[in-house]
Structures are given as C-alpha cells and as structure tokens.
C-alpha cells in the first residue's frame, strides 16, 4: 500500500495496517483535492463548504467507527484518528464539523439512545443528510458544566426545555441538537431537539477571528416542548456529556498532529526555497533549530497519539490519557503554527499560506472541549488523587 509521503521521522506509519493506510489516503486525497481549493474563500467569508457535506457522508467520514447497521463504516479507532488527522491538516473547522457530527451527536445516540432513536437518526447523520450539534456549554458555565441552568420540566408526554447554550459548533446549520439539561430531580439528561420545534432558536455568533470556516452559534430554548421519546434513555448525569467529550477529544488529539504537520511541512518548504544572504534560510542555525524542534515535537505527538488509539481499540483508554494527549498535542500544534509563521515572515500573514490560519484555529482548539488548564488538572487529579478544580 502506498503510504502518504509526509512527515514520518521515526516510521510512525510502519505500524499502520493496509486498511489504516488506505483510509488515510482516501481522507488525505479528498481533503487536498476537494477541500483545499475552497478553504481560503470560506475562511475569509466565515462560512463552511456545505456543498462538500454529501461527499463526506458518501466517503464515510461521519461516525466512521460506528457499526455498519447504521450506515457507518465500522473502522477501528486508529483509522478514525487518521481521518481526523487528515481533515485537520486541511483546517480545524473541517475536523470540528466531523467531530461534532460523529463523536458528539452520533456516538451518544449509538451509545445511549433507544433502538428507535438509532434507526431514525444514525443513517441520516452518517450520510450527511442531517446535521447535528451538541449543546452543553452555557454562557455562564464552560469549564464547570455541572453548574448548568438549562432546565427540563416534565409535562405529560413531553419535556419543556428552558435555557441557553453557547459556543455551539454547527448549531445554526443543525437539523438536530443534542441538548443537555437538568430535570426536576437535578439530574442531567440528553434531549434530541429537532429543528422546527417551537421555542428552539440558533442565532449565529459572528465576529470570530478563529475557526472562521466553521459555523458557531447559540441554542436558545424558550418553553421548547420535546417529546419524552426524544430523551436519551440510557444515560443520566454529567457522565453522559463528559463521555461524549472524551470521544471528541480523542479525535482532536489526532487532528492537532495533522495541523502541526501541515505547518511544519510549510515551514520546511519555505525555509528551503527562501534565499537571504545568498543562501536558503534553512541553512541558518536558528531556522534549523526551529525546524528540528518541530519535527521532534510532531514525532513525540505521533507516537503518543497512536498509543492512545491502540489503547482505545483494546478498550483500555482512560479519560485522563485523553486529557494528557490533548494538553500535549494542541499546545505543540499551536507553537509549531506560530513558529512556522516566524519562518515565513511577512508571507506568513497572508492566506496563501496555512500557518496563520492554523494558528488562529488552534487558539480555539487549545481551550475548547476542555481548556488546556482543565486538562492539566485532570492529569493532576489522576496522579495525586486530589481534585484541584475548585
């Protein structure tokens, strides 16, 4: 199998099997040929290339690690990670789109939903016919989601939802929102809210300087009546949304390596061809140091992430391992994006090059789905046994 010609200093890809390589190739080729020609204009316009969603569904990028019964590809978690790697090599907004759809909407329906919910929603979410979003964060509750004030009051065969969710990827585009709210017993439950339900609004958040090729919004719930059959029956408590986030962060961890690799390769190409003082700037020690440190950091992150994937495939992955990898990978990717920008000089600030776009995106990735600081405390909690969140 022809392995992608990309940064692989320590034969990382040597342990991928044929399926994993072929899947990475499909994702890579699709991103480079179909997505990359559109990214600059979408990033400037603040829009997502919706015209590509059916192709992503057709290729199987949504919920790729879920079972075939629901129209998914049932691939292993390393192959799933490699898709995220290639999507985020393109843009964090593209990977975010697939992460939300697959890990935050399809995965919880598959894991916690009724048979009827699975049959009804999963095939259409897999094909991209329907777009989903995940409502957990609130204006007043980010790192502390347990403090949520969104409420669900039982009324006959319905629940009546009131509250507001903020920073919700894809909410303005979504046909279906998985909203987390507390019931009258103060227990967090998951509600599948369909577009068109009275009292459900999704205003877009404008003015973002990061993740511009991703649509972000609020979810406003005003006496929004949701049938009781739209509650996820098999999960109660904060563990529900947190377990979804573990799935999505797993994908982020792979994606960050992809973004870092895209930056490093841009830095290397530029440094080898940019002539100053009659020689390529790659020949100067300070530039070489930057490049060597980049490849060093990427290589470490590759193996950390691959190990996380193999653990997940064995059913042995723990959430603190996901936290450690997110801490490492996203900070690493952001630093590489910034360092690449310095190698590119003025060229680095225009959208002809990717590093500043990646850097701006990674500013969000550093703090979304658990801030760098919270993940640090998750790891701290794991090694000391002492919770330092509050």
């Amino acid at each position, binding site marked *: 199998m*022809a392995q992608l010609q990309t940064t692989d200093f320590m034969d990382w890809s040597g342990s991928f099997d044929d399926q994993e390589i072929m899947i990475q190739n499909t994702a890579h080729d699709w991103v480079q040929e179909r997505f990359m020609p559109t990214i600059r204009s979408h990033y400037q316009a603040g829009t997502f290339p919706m015209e590509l969603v059916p192709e992503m569904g057709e290729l199987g990028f949504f919920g790729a690690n879920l079972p075939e019964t629901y129209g998914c590809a049932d691939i292993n978690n390393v192959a799933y990670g490699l898709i995220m790697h290639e999507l985020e090599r393109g843009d964090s907004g593209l990977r975010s789109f697939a992460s939300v759809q697959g890990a935050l909407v399809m995965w919880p329906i598959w894991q916690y939903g009724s048979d009827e919910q699975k049959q009804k929603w999963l095939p259409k979410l897999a094909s991209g016919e329907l777009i989903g979003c995940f409502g957990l964060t609130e204006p007043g509750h980010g790192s502390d989601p347990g403090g949520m004030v969104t409420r669900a009051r039982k009324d006959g065969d319905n629940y009546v939802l009131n509250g507001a969710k903020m920073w919700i990827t894809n909410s303005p585009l979504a046909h279906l929102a998985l909203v987390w709210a507390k019931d009258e017993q103060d227990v967090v439950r998951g509600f599948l809210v369909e577009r068109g339900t009275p009292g459900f609004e999704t205003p877009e958040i404008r003015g973002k300087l990061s993740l511009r090729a991703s649509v972000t919004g609020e979810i406003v719930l005003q006496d929004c009546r949701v049938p009781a059959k739209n509650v996820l029956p098999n999960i109660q408590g904060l563990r529900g949304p947190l377990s979804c986030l573990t799935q999505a962060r797993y994908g982020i961890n792979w994606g960050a390596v992809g973004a870092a690799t895209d930056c490093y390769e841009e830095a290397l190409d530029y440094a080898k061809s940019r002539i100053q003082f009659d020689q390529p700037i790659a020949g100067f020690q300070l530039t070489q140091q930057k490049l060597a440190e980049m490849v060093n950091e990427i290589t470490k992150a590759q193996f950390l992430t691959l190990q996380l994937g193999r653990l997940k495939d064995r059913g042995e992955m723990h959430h603190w391992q996901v936290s450690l990898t997110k801490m490492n990978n996203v900070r690493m990717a952001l630093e590489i994006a910034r360092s690449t920008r310095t190698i590119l000089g003025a060229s680095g600030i225009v959208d002809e090059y990717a590093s500043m776009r990646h850097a701006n995106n990674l500013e969000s990735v550093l703090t979304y789905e658990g801030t760098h600081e919270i993940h640090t405390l998750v790891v701290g909690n794991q090694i000391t046994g002492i919770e330092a969140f509050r």
Partner: protein
Amino acid sequence: MKIVVCVKHVPDTETKVAIGDDGKSLNPAGVKYILNPYDEFAVEEALKLNEADGDGEVIVVSVGPEAAQSSIRTALAMGADRAVLLTAEESALMDGVSIAQVLAEEVKTLEADVILTGKMAIDDYGYQVGSMLGELLNLPVLSTARELTISDGKATIVRDIEGGKETMEAPLPCVITAEKGLNEPRYPSLKGIMQAKKKPIEMKEAALTDGGFEILEMTYPPEKPAGRIVGEGPEAAAELVRLLRDEAKVI
C-alpha cells in the same frame, strides 16, 4: 456484464527513483507503489458501466509480485468484485509480450464481455500490453478511449487525434484501453475499504517466458544547467521573448 480490468502495480509518481547498483534496474529501497493511474481510469469505467447495467461483475487481473495485492485492494475498495493475481518476480516483468501472454491465458478463462486496461503503465511506458492482449485473444482493440458507451452489444469510443476527435466502434467482446480524461476515478470509500478486506484475491504463479530483449543500461537525465537572468524590469521582456523564440524555440 462481465468486465475484466487488467491492472499494474507501479512506483508512485511522487517517489524519487534511484538506479540500482547493477546500473540497469531501479533500486527498490524506499519506493512506494500505487495502482497505475491509467488502470485506475479503467477500473472506474468498469464500475460505472456495471452500475449503469445494474448487474454483473468486475474482475481485476494483474501480473506482479505478491506486494501487488495492495494495488489490487485499492481496485477492490473502489468497488471491483474479485481479483486474480498472477505472481511473478519484479525483475521478470519488463517484457510486454510475456505479460500479455500470461494475461491473455487468464482472461480467456473468464469469458468477459469487455476487457479494460490503461493505455500504458507509468513505470515502463511500454504502451504494449493492451494491444497485444487484443491480438492474442483475437479481439478488436479500441485504444486511448476518452469516452466510452456500450449498447446493443457494441462498444463505441471517442479518442483524441491530431486536431480533433475520432469515434470508433467494435462488437463485444473487445479490449479497450483508457486514456486520461475518460473519467474521474472515485476515492475508495471507508465502507469500500472495509469490504475489500473480505473480497477474494486468487493467487497463481505466472508462467512468464523470457523476454525478447534485455535492458542494457539506465542513466539519469543530464543535470539542468543553471538559469540565466536576461535583464530586469519591463525592458528585459523583449530580450526574454527573443531568447524564448530564437534560442529555446519554445514560442
């Protein structure tokens, strides 16, 4: 419709090739292999024909080393049904005649309605196997197709000729070779890749005969001389045009 597609496992065009120590073969170290791109057009066309037909089978046949299974898997992941790999050492694959003979023997047993292959392989630029296959099977050959339609037991192709297009027709079964532009090959979908794992690849040893020729030597192209700066600013344009016309003779 039963369609046979003959494919070859070739070095990736992105691979930097090096000549081996014997001075007449490629150094295989670090060389990545892919499904020959012209054969990929042939696979895509076969799949499209069968999808339109709604019924039938696409069988991939290849002569190559055991490692060629990876390129065959790509074709199976795109949607082909099954494959036959006639195994042979890489070093025995240079001669188009013996390859075509081995393929013809196998293809004969498959009783296909259409036999598709790329117009050439991008490694040796032989341009031989498709036409020879037609000859050995005693079937008509429609070569370098950029468009293909099949109806009423006939194949019609359109191909580029100097200054225009040519439309040709032949009764089925026939051999058709694919030119770039015939179609846009699909990306293997994730489901396709997972299904390909379960599709059979039948392996048989290829009875290749000795080639009628031998390779004496491989050499690198001469190094490009350094560029020349003919002047600066708009004044240099006229001189540049003169040199491109009179010296380089490219305009």
